[in-house]
């Protein structure tokens, strides 16, 4: 998944729905690439929180890649770090996920 621009209520809700669809289809490993994300606000973050919860309910694994430090700090502040894997880029995340098979 590749969100773009400003992650506020609309942006994050759209992402949440997409991830829920994937999880519902049985896909358990999801990668969110943040390279095109410019800003995240706390409404967006709270929707990410429920997205992480959903992934945990489905025994899924969320991987975040290409994050700016400032965005990573936000996730750290709200305590999401322990439920999500962070990678430099998609290749690294894919390598990791392949290794888990």
């Amino acid at each position, binding site marked *: 998944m590749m969100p773009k621009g*400003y992650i*506020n*209520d609309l942006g994050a809700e759209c992402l949440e729905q997409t991830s829920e669809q994937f999880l519902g289809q049985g896909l358990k490993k999801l990668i969110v690439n943040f*390279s095109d994300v410019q*800003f*995240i*606000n*706390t*409404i967006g*973050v*709270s*929707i990410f*929180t429920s997205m992480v919860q959903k992934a945990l309910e489905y025994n899924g694994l969320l991987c975040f890649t*290409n*994050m*700016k*430090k*400032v965005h*990573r*700090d*936000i996730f750290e*502040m*709200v305590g999401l770090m322990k439920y999500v894997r*962070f990678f*430099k880029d998609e290749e690294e995340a894919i390598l990791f996920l392949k290794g888990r098979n």
Partner: protein
Amino acid sequence: MPFGSLQEKDFLDRQSELADLYQRVLQAGAHAARSVVVAGPRGIGKTELLKQLFGLLFWRQDRVSPFYVVVNPALLSATPFSQTYLTQFLCQRLAFEKKEQSLLQRDGLSLDGLSALVEDRDAAWARELLDQYRQSSDPLSALRIALSAPSRSALITGTPVAVLIDEFHRLKGLSLEGSPDPHLASFFESPLSYGKTPHVITGNAPEIEEMPVSSGLDRMALLPLGFEDVSSKAVSLLRANEIKGDAPPLLLRRLGGNPFSVECVVRAAGAKKNPEERDFWNAYVREIREGTLARFWSSALKSSFPDLGSRRTALSLTHKIYHANEPFTCRRIAAAFSLTDRDAEATARALYFAGFIQGEFGVFRAVEDGVLRDIVDCLYLKEVLAKAPQDIERELLEKLLPQGEKAVRFDVTLPMTREAELVAAQCLDQIGKNMNLNQDAIGQLQIAVIEACINAMEHGKGAENGISVSVAVEGERMEVSIESAGREFIAQETGEPFGDHEVAKPSGRGWGIKLMKRFADDVRFEKTARGTKTILIKNVGKSINVQKEGSTERE
């Protein structure tokens, strides 16, 4: 003398709070009025407010008699306390009848002197109270009679009494036969709840909050003054000393809206004829190193920690809390300072009661007060690190003094429309690029500004004038202020707009202020004539190379 030190015309900063209290106690004339605790940090103006209220009630109306008393720490034994309380009340009550200011100065009268005065005025109600007091069988009965004197007089004469008590927390030290008994303060319970004797009490808020009698009272928080009020106060102090210049705005902001701090620093600077900017900063550093402000906090530390070892630990702990990103629990304090859990808790509680830290439920963090932070730093450098005075002064001035470059300022007005906050964030980005500022730091500040703008929109709902965003860059320091018409403000204890918690919980916006604090070096909230202003300050630093868009550090 229970009148304020300022003339009414000069007491501009707290007019709305004064009017609220005035109306509140006047209700006792017609209906029942509720007692209230006026809470606020040291130096915020609680005592002056009480004195101004006394003056207003004394001169301006005839329906409710004012009674002002300061709890004297030297007179906390039940007998002298009750006698002083009764004497002061009778003198002030009699003074009110014919507006005799001279009677207010006679509160040191003996009981015989008081009897003579009462006879002279032929005040039967006062004679009855005095006789009752003299016939009391023991100190406890005498105390009960003295404390109920205002309500008895209200019942007999039909004139309600507004009881204004300053330093109320000291009543925890009321003693019987030499040993303090905190329960004696519960004798106030009945007078505090009587509708014809509304009490306005103030003092050290954390200690008052822990007194059982305060639980049923209303609360009024005295907030820091807004920047405009601080500026006017500074100007008025300077002009009173025939000084033409103005105090530097950056310094005034640092004083955090505390009138006592403003007064101390401006007076100290005014000792020099025609002070320049540097003189004001020097005066501030002198104040926090060895002036009235420093002595005030140093003596608070000494009286809370008489033992040298524990004082040193307390100072080191305070310094650590002020420089930590996360709040401290007692367990964390115990581990960091090799203390038992009990000692850690006792130290933290004493610091909390002394006003150095916040945390009434055992999770402690720094008080939002830049001046206190500087004083703690200064004390730590002096007492724990044993640095020489000239080194401390140099270090502080280097930290505080602006870099000497002129401030550049940008102003934008945002409409209350969806995603308008992005405009402010993008402005910051462009300003950063134009001025070659560090892009990562700007990125952090952008996140904080987005949150502040969203808060302003939520609080200012329905207002037509939009949000004013002002960005000032001075050297490597960026200050962004976001002002809206939202009137919602603050719990004094946290210094934060309560709207952030109320509005936001369902949508997760409760993290907004945390996020601002995480990404800005300093976050302040001010009440302004228009509404509410949030000020974000960050030392952004210069960029080594001008970076292209999107090249911000990634992990």
